[in-house]
């Protein structure tokens, strides 16, 4: 090739390389800053699960989108692809003067603790955890609200259903043995299981509740294995408390012909074996947090979501609930709401 032509090629390459930069410099910004000064700006940062996790992240986003359409806020989302993205993502929103930054999941406790201290004028909502300081200790900050749930109350209601079915001999094996498979031995998981134990024991004191942990929240295989073990020990109803891993509980239970119970959201569509789900309304909590910033009632510290404020609940699945059991569930619901009974939140050995 001649030298001139080579130069031309080199020049063209340089120009092409510069193209994105030129484009970036030249364009007039049409996307930014469309909001007026008094529009509330809310940023949501997912954990590494991403928006399509069919769990907390997607539920929080539902709450955010609902707030966008009903409250007229500006809503922006950033997904974290790795844990080292948490702090930059939170900082990205905080540094640009967003009114509220929402962080999803206990894995972001330390990141929220860090960024909330640097930006005291920005409000933060942390779902399922309290912020942690530089030494890893839980702290309270005047600009952070921790959205926590009384999972034990939802666990209690599915426990009531399970206990009554066992007592009446309406379960597949009439074995008076049921199981719970947790993802990890962490507070939210144990709250669910403790409530489940309480509910079952209340209705069928002779029933035995097997408890196992898969140490996993995403891969379904370990949960399916734990379910298998519990089935071989006689369990005919298994409650999954392990997020994506727990989907293995539902499908394995379906294959082996036992009943299963879903968690966090209505999981009756995941498998035919799902007779009910213990739900945690992350979308409600997210929406309420945004609303509190909008109407000025933002509350730092811990906000608890329970049966009373519809933050947790019981959702029917693929088994019609007999009228007498429904009556009992409703009555226990009212007792919990009124404070007449308190559901324990620690797992019994």
């Amino acid at each position: 090739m001649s030298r001139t032509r080579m130069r031309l090629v080199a020049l063209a390459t340089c120009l092409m390389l510069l193209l994105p930069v030129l484009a970036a410099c030249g364009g007039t910004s049409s996307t930014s800053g469309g909001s007026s000064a008094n529009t509330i700006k809310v940023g949501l940062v997912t954990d590494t699960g991403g928006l399509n996790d069919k769990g907390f992240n997607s539920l929080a986003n539902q709450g955010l989108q609902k707030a966008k359409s009903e409250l007229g806020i500006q809503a922006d989302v950033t997904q974290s692809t790795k844990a080292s993205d948490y702090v930059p993502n939170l900082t990205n929103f905080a540094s640009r003067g967003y009114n509220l930054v929402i962080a999803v999941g206990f894995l972001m406790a330390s990141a929220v603790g860090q960024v909330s201290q640097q930006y005291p004028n920005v409000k933060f909502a942390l779902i399922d955890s309290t912020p942690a300081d530089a030494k890893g200790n839980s702290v309270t900050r005047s600009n952070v609200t921790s959205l926590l749930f009384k999972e034990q109350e939802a666990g209690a209601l599915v426990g009531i259903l399970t206990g009554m079915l066992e007592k009446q001999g309406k379960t597949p094996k009439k074995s008076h043995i049921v199981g719970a498979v947790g993802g990890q031995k962490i507070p939210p998981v144990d709250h669910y299981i403790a409530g489940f134990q309480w509910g079952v024991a209340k209705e069928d004191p002779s029933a035995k509740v097997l408890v196992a942990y898969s140490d996993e929240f995403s891969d379904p295989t370990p949960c399916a294995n734990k379910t298998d073990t519990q089935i071989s020990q006689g369990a005919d109803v298994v409650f999954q408390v392990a997020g994506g891993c727990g989907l293995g509980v539902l499908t394995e239970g379906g294959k082996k012909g036992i009943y299963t119970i879903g968690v966090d959201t209505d999981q009756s569509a995941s498998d035919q074996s799902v007779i009910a789900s213990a739900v945690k309304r992350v979308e409600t909590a997210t929406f309420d947090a945004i609303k509190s910033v909008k109407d000025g009632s933002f509350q730092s510290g811990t906000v608890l979501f329970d049966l009373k404020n519809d933050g947790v609940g019981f959702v029917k699945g693929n088994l019609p609930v007999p009228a007498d059991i429904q009556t009992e569930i409703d009555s226990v619901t009212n007792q919990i709401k009124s404070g007449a009974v308190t559901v324990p939140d620690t797992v019994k050995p």
Partner: protein
Amino acid sequence: MTASTAPARPESEAAATSPWVERLRRVGRALALPAGSVVLAFLIGAVLIALAGGDPLASYEALACGGFGISCFGGETPALQISNTIEFITPLLMAGLAVGVAFRAGLFNIGVQGQLILGAIFATIVGLRLASLPGVILIPLLMLAGVVGGALWAGIVGVLKAFTGAHEVVTTIMLNYVAYNLLNYLLINGPMQAPNSSQISLPVGQNAQLPTLIPQEGLFFGQPGGAYHASIGIFIALAAAGVYAFLMRRTALGYEIRAVGQSQRAARYAGISVRRTIIVTMLISGAFAGLTGGLMIAGGSLHYLYADLKFDTTGFDAIAVSLLGQNVAIGVVLSAILFGALHAGGLVMQSDVQISSHIVEILQAVILFSLAANFLRSLKLRLPSLGREPAKPDGMEAAQAALQAEVGSTAAAEGDGRA
């Protein structure tokens, strides 16, 4: 193509035989393939963004803002964006060197992720156990622990390869899984799990953390100093790149590594111990990877070990960094800057114009793909009018082509494995 075969040319080009022009031409030739791949990736990315209903121009504006702090229209602070980018460049550069040194010896180290996890585990243990030591002693010790952890993990691969011929692609991938499960064991109800927490260790103390480039107290460019996390880790990584260049070009060991990489038989004939070279190369590669882990703990924004490190892709992105940088130090530095900026930019792009940051992963994949397929070169060969007649490949080029072909096939295999 030498000057003597070229036709007569104008006066101004009479100096063509001068070393400067020759050097420029070589640089241009070396840059053509990577630069072409990057341009191609951006063009394909623009089409994809448009297809997804986004505005490619606005998206790339946001990408440039997040990556380099230029063209920021969403109220971002450019200095903060640059700080974020530096924070992401550091581990990519370090890990890219780890992959690069192995490549030069003809070894494909896919286990950088596992090695950096071991490095991070060792570094965290030292950071927590010796927390009372002053920073000037503790930080070097912590880095050394990272180096030892990574070198140990990669050394296993080197020894297996040297003495049993076990293919390093297989053994490094397997050891990645061992590292992931070791991490799970330590952090999930294990000995390193922080009390009242899950999946994370306690953070290392203040004196185990690298000094940041911007003081932590006070306001800088309108933002609190604590928001800037870029640390002197970037200088450690750049120094490592300098060591890499020196090792490869100026030392007998570097010569041996390159010789083994081009032809093991020829190297053996020349009296080089291939076994020793393979083991030493893997030890060095692992040391770089382990230092990456140390930098992630002592630098960055999270100073603790976390179980999600097994979903972190630094060790795999490093393969692309090294390939794009053609395994030379300056190239690895430049491509680490590009990939770090792309990652940081992707996060801003998503928050600003709501284009998923996954588009950045597509850009990276296209770059890697076109490098591996080397199809710009084949295009040039097919269409002679586009470029010069194919040069007769000399030994170096042939070796590189063979290596890239091998890398292409193994990269595809690796993709299958992860899917």
